[in-house]
């Protein structure tokens, strides 16, 4: 590694050592039965605990930002550090060795997806206004894309934006909006011209979540918590300078967001779920349940660990390719599919080991707690593009297989057949 990177690494360590503690257990050693045994992917905390965690996340992000690590790849004029993706990954790798608050509420959607979109498509003063605020943890952003009638087929969305003087008036309904209850702004895709084909008449906006006419209603997930929401937009006024990209060119803007989304979901390595579905944790689980010598369990463990490790190798190689300045390949899609598959298999394997103690809480450490992960895994195969849609993309874009015939992308949006909604 170059000397410049060594300096960076030393700076990161200095910052972390001064502010947080190193994790007690690392690598392969693991003490079964101590510490929290929460194995959740989504929050299942009651609202007050949830709010406290969000506050912690924001304050940690502020400290990161003050130390120059809030937005490592961002341009300096908007509070970024102007360094490479590799620096960013190096930082993440080191930070994972420490006990730090989970900043997912900020990073996954706001900083990972909406931030880059604002940077690419917003006007200068809007970037000034929001980017430093987002990357310093002050402003939380959510993604207002999906609608009741527009899930996989996002381009069939129907929320209307109508020009009104020097601004716009937005009316419609969004759904499955993660963290909308915490968000200050949202990026919304709206229909501005229903007489054009569905991909053509869409415009993207930044919405102030506290504006009159914005109403957030929580939806409970099958895993128990209420991370996602319905968002009703009724005559919400948005100034024209909060438009992202050109009028009717919102699909292109959305693609920036979606590209960043796939990269975010597949690349996740940390978190309680990944810690649980790992060799040390699963081995300890087998040992605690007297199954470590059981041939069938060993075999399933080996199969799972082989795939987990190979997926890690895949991610490393993608990283090395980026370091060498080459284009990322289709690894992100493969990685996302594997990530969901590995966690799902891991959760089911653990479920088999703990058996009925998964479905009835006997108070035992590391048993009933697996149900949180088990109940979350179905979502990993749906969010950010379902498994089926990812396979369509791989098959059509990478392998060059023919598209599904008969899908209408030419007729005006108004004439399309849609679920429930009025076009």
């Amino acid at each position, binding site marked *: 590694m170059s000397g410049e990177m060594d300096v960076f690494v030393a700076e990161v360590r200095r910052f972390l050592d001064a502010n947080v503690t190193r994790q007690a257990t690392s690598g392969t050693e693991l003490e079964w039965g101590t510490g929290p045994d929460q194995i959740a992917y989504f929050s299942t905390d009651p609202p007050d605990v949830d709010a406290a965690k969000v506050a912690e996340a924001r304050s940690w992000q502020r400290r990161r930002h003050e130390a120059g690590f809030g937005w490592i790849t961002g341009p300096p004029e908007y509070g970024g550090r102007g360094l490479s993706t590799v620096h960013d990954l190096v930082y993440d790798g080191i930070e994972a060795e420490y006990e730090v608050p989970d900043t997912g509420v900020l990073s996954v959607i706001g900083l990972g997806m909406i931030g880059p979109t604002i940077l690419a498509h917003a006007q200068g003063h809007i970037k000034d206004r929001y980017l430093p605020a987002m990357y310093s943890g002050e402003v939380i952003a959510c993604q207002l894309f999906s609608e009741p009638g527009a*899930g*996989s087929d996002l381009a*069939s969305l129907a929320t209307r934006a109508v020009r009104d003087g020097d601004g716009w008036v937005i009316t419609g309904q969004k759904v499955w909006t993660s963290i909308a209850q915490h968000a200050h702004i949202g990026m919304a895709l709206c229909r501005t011209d229903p007489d054009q084909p569905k991909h053509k008449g869409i415009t993207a906006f930044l919405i102030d979540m506290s504006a009159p006419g914005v109403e957030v209603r929580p939806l409970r997930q099958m895993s128990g918590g209420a991370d996602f929401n319905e968002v009703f937009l009724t005559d919400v006024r948005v100034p024209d300078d909060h438009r992202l990209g050109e009028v009717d060119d919102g699909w292109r803007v959305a693609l920036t967001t979606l590209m960043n989304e796939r990269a975010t979901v597949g690349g996740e390595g940390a978190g309680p779920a990944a810690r649980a579905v790992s060799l040390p944790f699963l081995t300890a689980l087998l040992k605690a349940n007297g199954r470590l010598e059981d041939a069938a369990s060993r075999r399933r463990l080996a199969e799972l660990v082989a795939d987990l490790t190979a997926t890690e190798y895949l991610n490393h190689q993608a990283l090395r390719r980026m370091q060498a300045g080459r284009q990322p390949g289709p690894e992100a899609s493969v990685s996302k599919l594997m990530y969901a598959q590995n966690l799902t298999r891991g959760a089911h394997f653990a479920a088999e080991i703990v*058996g*009925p103690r998964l479905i009835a809480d006997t108070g035992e450490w590391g048993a009933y707690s697996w149900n949180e992960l088990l109940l979350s895994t*179905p979502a990993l195969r749906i969010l950010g593009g379902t498994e089926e849609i990812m396979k369509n993309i791989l098959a059509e874009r990478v392998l060059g297989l023919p598209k*599904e015939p008969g*899908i209408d992308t030419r007729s005006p949006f108004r004439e*399309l057949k849609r679920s429930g909604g009025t076009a």
Partner: protein
Amino acid sequence: MTGTALDAATTELLAGSLRELLASVSAGGELGPALDALGWAEVLADDPATATTLLFTEHGRALVSSRALDDVLLAELDPALPPAAGSRALLYPHPAEGADPAPLDGPLWGVLLGPLHGVDEVVVPATAEGRTVLVTVAATDLAAAGGPATGFDLGSTWHTVAGPRPPGSGPPAPEAWTRAVAAGRRALAAEMIGVCESALTLATAHTTDRVQYGRPIASFQAVRHRLAEAYVAVTAARAVLDAAWTAAGGADGGGWAAAAAKLQAGRAQAQVMRHAVQVCGAMGLSQESELHRHVTRAAALDALLGGHMALAESAGAALLAGADVHPVVEL
């Protein structure tokens, strides 16, 4: 088997009445009296296989939580017990322990299918010197140890009982217990099949209504093939259950075949739920949708009296140890 088999038309009619009846139960009615009004005892005597399967399939479909399963097991246990002093309930071995009753010299641990009001005594199977004994205890003695089950299936009325064992003794009745478990497994298999059918109906309806890319998503092969696979799994489970009823007249009460039926139904529910959740998209993950209630109920039913993975494991172990297996289906 005593009575005459129900014909297809009668069966259909009965299914309809049961469906109505269980709908009223899930709206707050009581199952027992409603069944009495239907003359259920006679139907059951005429054709226990069809009647039990019908009742529990519909019970599963409606996601009703009741003590109907107690009647199935107690019917096998009653002959081995002293006459009842009022209404009886059964304490099931805690799912965490599989289908084997807890030791008599240890504390109580088990599950009741409902609260204890209206119950006079509880039959508590226990293991003493390697045999199952049936201890009867007064319901009032258990009240303190019980509480609503905290767990996965929040929609059920199950109660967990844990605490010191109240005094009481009872006759050894290992054969009766074996027969009761077999009967219970057949009923639970039917109930899981019912939950699956209902989930599959939901998923089929959702994917037929839901339009993406200008057409119902059920027209995409990725979706329809999942539904087809789920359907095959349920059909296979039903076939094994039918075969288990044929074996029910055997000496051990058809224990092997009943375990196979429950195993198959348990596998089917895992597969059906996985596919159903995936084809419903985010909708299926939200608690607004009925689907998650099916997922958790099916998993809870699977765990009672031995989950499918545990059953497969014990069947495998028994086979390797040289157990004599009566084929489930005679060819």
